[in-house]
């Protein structure tokens, strides 16, 4: 009895820091810092851009993971929170900039809590009426919610969203965040040792990549701590068995609303960052397909799993963008840069195929969380066992009719 308890403590200690693990983390950190600079240095400007987009998807996937992976509520309209974060941040940011231009470089950072709160509040507004729904019904309602948000934005309510033309309006701009201009103007160091054309330089993409990586780290940090807490346990309990959970004192209403709002929050921050990164935001970026891609990201990576979300984002967002980028830059032999967008459209076909294969061979995802893996895999084995047993019995009975009598 006592042995298994020390087991847990030992495991916790082992998770913290063997020298090998620390070395791997340091290597990873250096990789994250250096990789975009190297690509930028050799003139592959689209790579840091893609890396930043992947980072945004990681944030989205981690946020949606709270709702889908932890609490088990299928949300097909998650991109709405991305949209709300983007629009709330840009609109309030523009208002703040108008009244206090000296805040310019800080507006993005000041808007982070605004976007987060706007998205979280919307999460609660969406969550309240759909609390009674589960499974397919919830999926349909959230899908509708995602579309409603996009259509409202397109219809330019009270003239604040500028409709399909997007924000900022002509003649306005989203202020550049602190430090970016200085870095762009002052970092220009040719390093001939790394090749004749190599120049250590800084641009928009790299700046935002670093910001997004920091935000991802914050997301991972918070999401992990939430998962390993009283709230995380009640999410898991809710996902496993709602009736049993509520009979043990878990408030279904409260627990679901926490999931919706804490999930939405990260979507909102990612949306704001996206708008600032692109310097533009329009309803086109928030279509239903985007919601589907975020769900795909966590399904492929493994529901409820943080490394899974990262791997999923690299596959779903990174791979096609990378191929498209290569083609557009004329770096794919034999492919005309003009057809790059056409190539990108094939990703729908490839994803479809990929999802079918995944569901058949590895329904728990590439890097599943332990708990979720247990949920999906052995059950299949059990079913298979039962089926083969029944098959055996059937054959056995057929071969020896009357053995029961």
């Amino acid at each position: 009895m006592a042995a298994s308890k020390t087991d847990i403590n030992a495991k916790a200690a082992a998770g913290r820091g063997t020298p090998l693990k620390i070395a791997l983390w340091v290597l990873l950190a250096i990789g994250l810092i250096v990789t975009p600079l190297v690509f930028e240095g050799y003139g592959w400007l689209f790579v840091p851009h893609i890396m930043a987009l992947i980072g945004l998807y990681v944030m989205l996937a981690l946020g949606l993971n709270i709702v889908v992976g932890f609490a088990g509520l299928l949300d097909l309209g998650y991109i709405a929170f991305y949209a709300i974060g983007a629009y709330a941040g840009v609109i309030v940011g523009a208002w703040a900039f108008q009244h206090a231009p000296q805040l310019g470089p800080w507006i993005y950072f000041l808007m982070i809590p605004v976007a987060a709160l706007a998205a979280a509040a919307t999460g609660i507004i969406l969550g309240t009426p759909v609390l009674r729904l589960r499974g397919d019904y919830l999926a349909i309602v959230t899908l509708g919610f995602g579309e409603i948000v996009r259509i409202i934005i397109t219809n330019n309510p009270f003239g604040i969203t500028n409709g399909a033309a997007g924000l900022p309006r002509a003649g306005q701009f989203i202020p550049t965040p602190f430090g970016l201009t200085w870095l762009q103007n002052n970092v220009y160091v040719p390093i001939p040792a790394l090749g004749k054309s190599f120049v250590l330089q800084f641009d928009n993409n790299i700046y935002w990549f670093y910001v997004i990586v920091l935000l991802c780290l914050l997301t991972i940090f918070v999401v992990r701590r939430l998962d390993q807490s009283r709230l995380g346990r009640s999410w898991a309990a809710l996902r496993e068995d709602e009736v049993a959970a509520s009979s043990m004192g878990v408030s279904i209403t409260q627990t679901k609303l926490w999931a919706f709002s804490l999930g939405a929050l990260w979507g909102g921050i990612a949306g704001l960052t996206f708008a600032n990164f692109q310097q533009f935001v329009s309803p086109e970026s928030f279509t239903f397909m985007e919601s589907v891609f975020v769900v795909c990201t966590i399904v492929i990576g493994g529901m409820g799993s943080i490394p899974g979300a990262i791997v999923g984002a690299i596959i779903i967002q990174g791979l096609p963008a990378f191929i498209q980028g290569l083609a557009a830059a004329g770096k794919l032999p034999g492919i005309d840069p003009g057809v790059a967008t056409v190539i990108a459209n094939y990703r729908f076909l490839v994803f479809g195929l990929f999802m079918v294969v995944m569901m058949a061979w590895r329904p728990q995802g590439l890097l599943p969380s332990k708990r979720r893996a247990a949920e999906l895999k052995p059950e299949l084995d059990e079913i298979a066992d039962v089926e083969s047993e029944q098959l055996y019995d059937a054959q056995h009975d057929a071969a020896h009719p009357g053995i029961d009598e």
Partner: protein
Amino acid sequence: MARLVDAQHATMQFGGLKAVNDVTLHIDEGEIVALIGPNGAGKTTLFNMLTGIYTPTEGQLTFRGEPVGGKKPHVIAKLGITRTFQNIRLFQNMSALENVMIGRHTRTKATAIGAVFRTPRFKAEEAKTVDEAYEGLKFVGLGGKANELAKNLPYGDQRRLEIARALAAEPTLLLLDEPAAGMNPQETKALNGLVRKVRALGVTILLIEHDMKVVMDLADRIYVLDFGELIAQGVPAEIQRNPKVIEAYLGSGAEALLAASKNGSPLDPPATGAPRDVASETTTDATAAEEEPTNG
């Protein structure tokens, strides 16, 4: 003894069916009360009404004088009623320890903010919850299986884990829905011991059980439901002799048969002074009772 549960004319109607019809009963503090009756008599429905899963269509349910009819399940759990389920409803893919930790939910209050910042209070509460969950597992004899997933536990252990989870909420009243179902004789015996241990903690118990050996052994009082109605109540010895109960279990005319078979039934428990086993008799004699009319 203080009155714990008071049900006045409690009725649960599903469309045209009265699953529980005008049931009036009470449970006093410290008792073990059993609820028996044939399948479909409304026993589990009554449990569901007491725990807030169903709202009674008529009548009053109070717990320590406070009305509970129509309250949400988690509110009732917090008031001090927890339960186990007829079809085991553990959190299958969580460890035994985590299952019991969920049971501590009403007794802990860490917030999301505390979780993110790992405040000293949060850490202390988590550590305490783990310790208490361990104690709970040890109490039911599962101390060595804390890290097993609930679904990998053997059947009897799953039943006991459910009890541990329900006890973790420190209930005043524990509802056990067929805790001995599917258990072998040794497991059943161990369960009897466990239920007594729970009572010794000062927890009042309401028990649904088909195994009459368990019921007669444990219960201070018994209520008998049939087709949603309360047909009998009393101490075990009274219930065993109650003609209405025998009729509900065996059909009309069975009483005489039962009396006749008393001398020679091979399934009679040996004369050790243990309470008579109505259930095993009912099963053997029921076939006889059913065949009798067709033959004669």
